[in-house]
């Protein structure tokens, strides 16, 4: 009898605790109708902030930080903060980070995830919690067909980038023998498939490498024996830089081309000036250093460097969320609805952001650019034709 009494008392105590806790939590929830006066909202930034792939993502994080700093200065009391989630670009690390982002109720929107592989892990978690995201650089086409309502892409996908690379090889580089290599990642394989569709019979050989691979000797031999005059690499810088270096060391003199996964400063510095010279990368983004408005000057003043890849895109996408805050969209559901009807021009990129039902950017707004490595820098930005 005594025991039973103790149990009942214990049960009541736990109930009281839970209720108390819930009440306490409730107080922290942002007011839903306070408009721009709501303070302390957060925007998440999800991607590789350390590690080998960080070169592709940290400029974007700085862009987002700049947007928020400007917003806070213009709206005293808003105190919006950026919460970084460092996935190191890895799908393994993405799930716990996404869960943490979802658990913080003050996070109303997320810029990212930056890569396609981690998107496939993190986006279902975001979708379940109704936390809207806009990715600045995850370009695998199939991300739009997974039924994630929260998914928005701020750039063109590889269905536009891949064919553009194929056409570049055909029309600009005049390559009739192309060797395709990919890293078996969600992004790398997807991009390769699109390139292959355009090139057709011009493909003289294919090979797959793996993440963290360092020795490419047999691939180099295969490329040389295929007689290829151009090599396409679908993947990211950490493998592409040593691969290109070993290709050049092995006497390959033809064109080397890759997608936006190679468009970062590490590709230049790790490969080295002499070996990277003439390498071509494409990006569904324009040159960030030629962004519109005061963006370039402001970025340089705040961070002391020129804006890198996707800095301008992430800046504009962060501002989309901030406009939402300004318009009083302070819950995830309101923000999601806000994005659905959004139609506005980004001040840095000049792109009109308007999303289709599947989260893709309006096709009319997509543009693909090519850059050529020259004297240790990405030079000659050229917009590629759409067909």
């Amino acid at each position, binding site marked *: 009898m005594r025991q039973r009494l103790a149990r009942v008392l214990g049960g009541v105590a736990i109930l009281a605790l839970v209720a108390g806790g819930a009440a306490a939590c409730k107080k922290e929830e942002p007011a839903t109708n306070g408009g721009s006066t709501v303070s302390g909202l957060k925007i998440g930034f999800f991607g590789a902030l350390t590690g*080998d792939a960080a070169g592709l993502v940290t400029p974007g994080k700085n862009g987002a930080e700049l947007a928020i700093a400007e917003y806070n200065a213009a709206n005293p009391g808003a105190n919006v903060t950026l919460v970084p989630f460092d996935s190191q670009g890895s799908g393994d690390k993405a799930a716990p980070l996404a869960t943490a982002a979802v658990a913080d109720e003050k996070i109303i929107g997320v810029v990212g995830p930056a890569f396609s592989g981690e998107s496939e892990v993190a986006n279902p978690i975001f979708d379940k919690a109704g936390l809207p995201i806009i990715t600045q650089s995850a370009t695998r086409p199939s991300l739009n067909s997974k039924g994630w309502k929260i998914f928005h892409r701020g750039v063109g996908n590889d269905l536009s980038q891949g064919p553009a690379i194929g056409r570049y090889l055909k029309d600009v580089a005049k390559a009739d023998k192309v060797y395709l290599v990919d890293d078996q990642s969600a992004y790398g394989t997807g991009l390769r498939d699109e390139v292959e569709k355009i090139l057709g019979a011009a493909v003289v050989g294919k090979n797959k490498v793996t993440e963290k691979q360092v020795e490419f000797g047999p691939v180099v031999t295969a490329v040389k024996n295929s007689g290829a005059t151009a090599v396409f690499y679908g993947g990211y810088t950490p493998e592409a830089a040593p691969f290109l*270096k070993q290709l050049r060391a*092995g006497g390959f003199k033809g064109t080397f081309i890759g997608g936006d996964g190679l468009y970062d400063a590490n590709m230049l510095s790790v490969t080295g000036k*002499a070996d990277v010279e003439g390498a071509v990368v494409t990006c569904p983004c324009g040159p960030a250093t030629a962004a519109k408005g005061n963006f370039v000057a402001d970025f340089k003043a705040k961070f002391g460097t020129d804006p890198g890849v996707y800095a301008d895109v992430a800046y504009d996408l962060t501002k989309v969320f901030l406009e939402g805050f300004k318009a009083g969209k302070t819950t995830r559901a309101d923000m999601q609805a806000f994005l659905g009807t959004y139609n506005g021009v980004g001040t840095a990129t000049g792109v009109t952001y308007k999303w289709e039902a599947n989260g893709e950017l309006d096709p009319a707004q997509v543009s693909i650019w090519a850059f050529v490595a020259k004297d240790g820098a990405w030079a000659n930005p050229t917009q590629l034709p759409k067909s």
Partner: protein
Amino acid sequence: MNFDDLIQGFPDLTTTGLAQGSIYALVALGYTLVYGVLRLINFAHSEVFMFGTFAALWTWGLMGYDSNSARPDLGTALLLVLVSLVVASLFSGGVAMVVEAVAYRPLRKRNAPPLVFLISAIGASFVLAELMGAFTERRQQGIPGLLPGEPLFSAGGWTVYPLQLATVVVALAVMFALDWFVSKTRFGRGIRAVAQDADTAALMGVNKGRVIALVFLLGGLLAGVAAVFYSMKQGNTRFNVGFLMGLKAFSAAVLGGIGNLRGALVGGLLLGLVESYGAALFGSNWTNVIAFVVLLVLLMFRPTGLLGESLGRARA
């Protein structure tokens, strides 16, 4: 399966395989030496190698050569390589001795069971890798191409580059020197004595502690040599390059017969060749699978490796 790639590229694949295998063999010797004497797998040896790659990178950096530099002329290149060989070997050797003094010697004094050494080794490996990771911000760092980039000779689809030749020649030379050291010198006799029977060797006046430190130093020196050639070949390094190299070199040591010096050489070269041919035949992404399947099959028929386990016995 792509027989065309294999047949067409056979000569080149052999050269790249031998060069890669020489590097495996040099690192494998470190595992084999320590195992021969202590019956211990020194898992931290992979990080000793990784520190060597950074020592080489920094040496060249201090001498004004980074990944953006143009290739120097032959004389300068040889000087750069020689200096980095000395610095990287000493640095790796030093790290190896520190690992021994910090991670193993205290345990040995307390007669800890073998399993504890294993944990200590894994711990040391993590600590070293993460230290370097934190210090270099986990960034991948480019390494300059030093030796001339023109082929040494090129005939009928067979091309040999200076770096490939240098790697194989230096690796073989170092290996013969080590073999001579262990079989002919007084220090070598001490190593063999401790390997055969540590207690009896101690009774005969061999300083066991010093012999063990010497063995770690030797392994470290060889890893340093391997690191220099690896750096030039791969053209980049980062804090986690030790992991895969350690795994491969350890496999090479087991393949040849762990504890057996000549076995490490044979195992390393064989692994390099198998990887190279396998990658051409099945695609580069299958490299590791093929290497380990071959390892398993060989060990099924020769459980103690190709040349058998022995350090200090006749074969070593």
